[in-house]
């Protein structure tokens, strides 16, 4: 008996170590990505110069390229990626389906339409846009949930209802952007796929705020969400307050996704991809929220770099993540169909 207990304890310690190693690995990857994006662009900036700019010194040449161009972009990429990754994974965990990510079930479309309306029609900016996006994102989430409700919410019905709602909202966004006089068409399209072009450091503030408030909220629910993966009944038996957990999680998801969408546009498929990638590389039975957030950040950072430097022509980050995400979405559907598994 004690032998078995020791074995289990050893196994758990191993799992914890593995989880920690994964987090460190992801952090290292992210730091490497940051270093790369700050040093290597159209011109090469030596690491010392980068550090001196970061420390606030005035370095001729480097101050502009690193301080004004590369740093805001990198910071915004990482923060938005964290938001999308964390929000997406929490939503997928809550609804128990990789397809139920906020960008597929319409939450992103709701926030996006609201943000575009606020920017283009009302002429708002800054925090007001984010607030509007959060409010409308919550409204959309509520609407989808209510419409999908029929003796409980079935995953497939929720996804289909979400697809219908987002079709409506996207047609609104498309129309607003097309008719907007002050936006050029390319700008509008760039926004619709999501981009960090023309990033300013001031834009990082709302993202940081959202991450502190809503991110902490979600990570606080990580344990409960993990228990809910076993099924509602078992989770309730384990002492999880289901309604409260659901409500807080949805609030956190919408907060993160809406603020990030309001600032960078709906960067395609990051929320959808981060969860499954994190689930693949992390130990089973561990919460994937934190790894998923880091994966999201790495995705946006590297995809943006690839769109700027590695590909012929310059692409906004959303195009690159879209090109990765679209085939994966099809693959996921094919796998679900072949195995006959639940969605």
């Amino acid at each position: 008996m004690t032998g078995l207990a020791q074995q289990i304890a050893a196994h758990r310690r191993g799992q914890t170590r593995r989880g920690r190693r994964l987090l460190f690995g992801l952090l290292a990857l992210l730091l490497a990505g940051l270093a790369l994006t700050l040093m290597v662009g159209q011109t090469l900036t030596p690491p010392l110069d980068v550090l001196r700019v970061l420390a606030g010194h005035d370095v001729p040449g480097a101050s502009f390229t690193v301080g004004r161009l590369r740093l805001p972009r990198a910071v915004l990429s990482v923060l938005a990626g964290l938001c999308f990754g964390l929000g997406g994974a929490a939503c997928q965990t809550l609804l128990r389906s990789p397809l139920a990510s906020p960008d597929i079930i319409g939450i992103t479309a709701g926030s996006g339409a609201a943000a575009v309306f606020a920017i283009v029609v009302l002429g708002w900016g800054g925090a007001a846009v984010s607030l509007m996006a959060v409010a409308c994102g919550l409204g959309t989430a509520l609407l989808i949930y209510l419409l999908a409700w029929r003796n409980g919410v079935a995953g497939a019905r929720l996804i289909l209802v979400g697809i219908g709602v987002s079709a409506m909202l996207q047609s609104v966004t498309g129309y607003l952007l097309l008719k907007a006089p002050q936006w050029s068409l390319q700008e509008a399209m760039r926004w619709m796929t999501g981009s960090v072009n023309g990033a300013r450091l001031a834009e990082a503030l709302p993202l940081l705020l959202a991450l502190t408030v809503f991110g902490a909220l979600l990570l606080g629910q990580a344990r409960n969400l993990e228990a809910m993966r076993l099924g509602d009944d078992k989770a309730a038996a384990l002492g999880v307050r289901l309604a409260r957990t659901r409500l807080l999680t949805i609030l956190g998801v919408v907060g993160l996704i809406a603020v990030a969408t309001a600032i960078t546009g709906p960067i395609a498929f990051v929320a959808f991809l981060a969860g499954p990638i994190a689930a693949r590389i992390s130990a089973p039975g561990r919460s994937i929220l934190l790894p998923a957030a880091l994966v999201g950040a790495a995705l946006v950072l590297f995809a943006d770099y690839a769109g700027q430097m590695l590909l012929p022509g310059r692409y906004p980050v959303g195009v690159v993540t879209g090109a990765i995400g679209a085939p994966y979405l099809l693959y996921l559907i094919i796998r679900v169909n072949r195995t006959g598994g639940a969605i």
Partner: protein
Amino acid sequence: MTRTATETPVRRPRTRLMWLLLVLAALLAGCALSVVIGTRDVGWAEIASALGGGRDSIGEAVVAVRLPRTLLAALAGAALGLSGAVMQGVTRSPLADPGILGVNAGAAMAVVIGMAWFGIESLSAFLWTAILGAGATAALVYAIGSLGRGGATPLKLALAGAATAIAVSSLTVAILLPRADIAGGVQSWQIGGVGGATPEAITAMLPFLAAGFALSLLSARNLNMLALGDDTAAGFGVPVALTRFIAATGAVLLCGATTAICGPIGFVGLVVPHLCRLLVGVDHRWLLPFSALAGAVLLLLSDVLGRILARPAELDVGIITAFVGAPAFIWIVRRRRIREL
């Protein structure tokens, strides 16, 4: 579809004839409204003189612009309504529609690829490319949707179609973004509208529409058999695979040609057959022509509504149909238990 068959009572010929007359009257009314209403309303006298060939007053010039637009809206609506009805018959899915199954998005991507990489410019090239793209996407979605146990269930098809549509649209943007020269034209076309109608465009799409109409309507009897289930249909001597192929080809021709000229207009093919099934029952020999007529009415009225709502500008018809169709889609999803889907 079998479920609907047991629910809907058999319609008497007289009821059907009455509905037929009503739909025809609605079609005429829709055409008339579409010619009369707009940024500048015109009087009957002006219309009459414009039809007689006069092009002198502003009113007559307005009519000269609105006539092809009306014709295009009617044709596109008929094509989309019919193609939706055929797709619902072929897949036996209440959620089938060229928009939901991703076929319109596929046609749009093919056109964008053609413009960006092969420099196509002529109308007939647009049409052929769009139909090719629509066909390829339809085949892909059907293949993905019919993998695994149970074959092509409505739920699997709808998810496969939606996923394909999302994936394809994302790739379309990727192709389009670095090309400012073509992006402008494509972006307004992508919302879906009949505003840019020209007589040339209509003439170019007519042969494809005619072929699509013929193939679809000829399949009506066999689609009735398919509704009984593949095995029963085969037992009655219906070549199941061939029927599917012919009917689907007709549907693809219809929605591909429409998408090439008007852009992807969603949800018309979803709503119209459901409505018509309530009116005339599930017999495809009635349902198919009815769906075509009702589709024309729906698109005409949506187009007119778009002109009234945003005066003096106009809302593209694709936006109106999204707002009419998406709630209908959600209603259908809600009405059925998910296992049946």
